[in-house]
């Protein structure tokens, strides 16, 4: 993996460039929104990628709770962090699209709200990791990740029903999805998945390295001569 990394990075960059080209120049312009709608070629694939990583976090947490394998915990941290980064992208690009199209930055629509809640849940997950002391962090974090995964369906349910009781704000123009649009979406998603995977791999290596450093610290401490007064 270490040797293949530069090649993969170049391939990913090429794929991202191609996706960018497709999104900017090939995909047809939307009649109602004009070129601004092209934001969704970044917005939507980022959202999908985010779900992939949060799901990875959930699976890794379950594996950790059963097997107590430190590598599963490293996967869980890395996935949660990268997922949160993609979630941030979704939350930032969303309003940038909403402002010209809807005329407002933010509305408490169920999709927006639930994504924000998702962001809050995983942010609290990372805060717990940072604040917990000693060796219990992985266990606590894994338990919290399970809670988060259980919570999400309920969040969607509650907010969806809550908001649909009111008239929906403007739902994006365009009507049915054009096949050429879908194609660009898929290309873009593939590019972001590759990119996300590379970042995830870096974060995972960093976590493993961090543990090695900690290990060395404690080994060093063990080498000290035992003494008795």
């Amino acid at each position, binding site marked *: 993996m270490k040797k293949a990394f530069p090649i993969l990075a170049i391939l990913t960059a090429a794929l991202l460039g191609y996706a*960018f080209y497709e999104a900017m120049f090939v995909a047809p312009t939307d009649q109602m929104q*004009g*070129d*601004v709608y*092209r*934001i969704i070629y*970044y*917005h939507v694939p*980022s959202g999908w990628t985010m779900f992939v990583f949060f799901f990875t976090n959930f699976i890794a947490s379950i594996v950790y709770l059963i097997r107590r394998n430190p590598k599963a915990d490293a996967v869980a941290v890395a996935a949660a*962090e*990268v997922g949160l*980064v993609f979630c*941030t*992208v979704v939350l*930032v*690009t969303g309003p*940038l*699209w909403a*402002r*010209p199209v809807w005329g407002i930055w933010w509305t408490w629509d169920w999709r927006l709200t639930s994504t924000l809640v998702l962001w809050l849940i995983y942010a609290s997950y990372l805060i717990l990791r940072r604040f917990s002391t000693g060796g219990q962090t992985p266990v606590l974090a894994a338990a919290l990740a399970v809670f988060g995964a259980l919570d999400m369906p309920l969040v969607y349910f509650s907010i969806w029903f809550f908001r649909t009781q009111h008239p929906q704000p403007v739902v994006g123009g365009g009507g049915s999805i054009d096949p050429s649009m879908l194609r660009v979406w898929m290309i873009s998603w593939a590019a972001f998945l590759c*990119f996300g995977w590379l*970042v995830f791999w*870096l*974060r995972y290596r*960093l976590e493993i*390295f*961090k543990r*090695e*450093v900690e290990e*060395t*610290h404690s080994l*060093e401490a063990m*080498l000290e001569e035992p003494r008795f007064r």
Partner: protein
Amino acid sequence: MNYLYAAYAATWIIHGSYLCSLAIRYRRLKREMKDLKPRP
């Protein structure tokens, strides 16, 4: 149209700053490891 550029730029700023933070964390760990190693 400006919003489009803003959104694309924002995406890469977020990803870029996350990668930077990873690099910083990595460098800090590396220094720590170096400080640890020479002592037997």
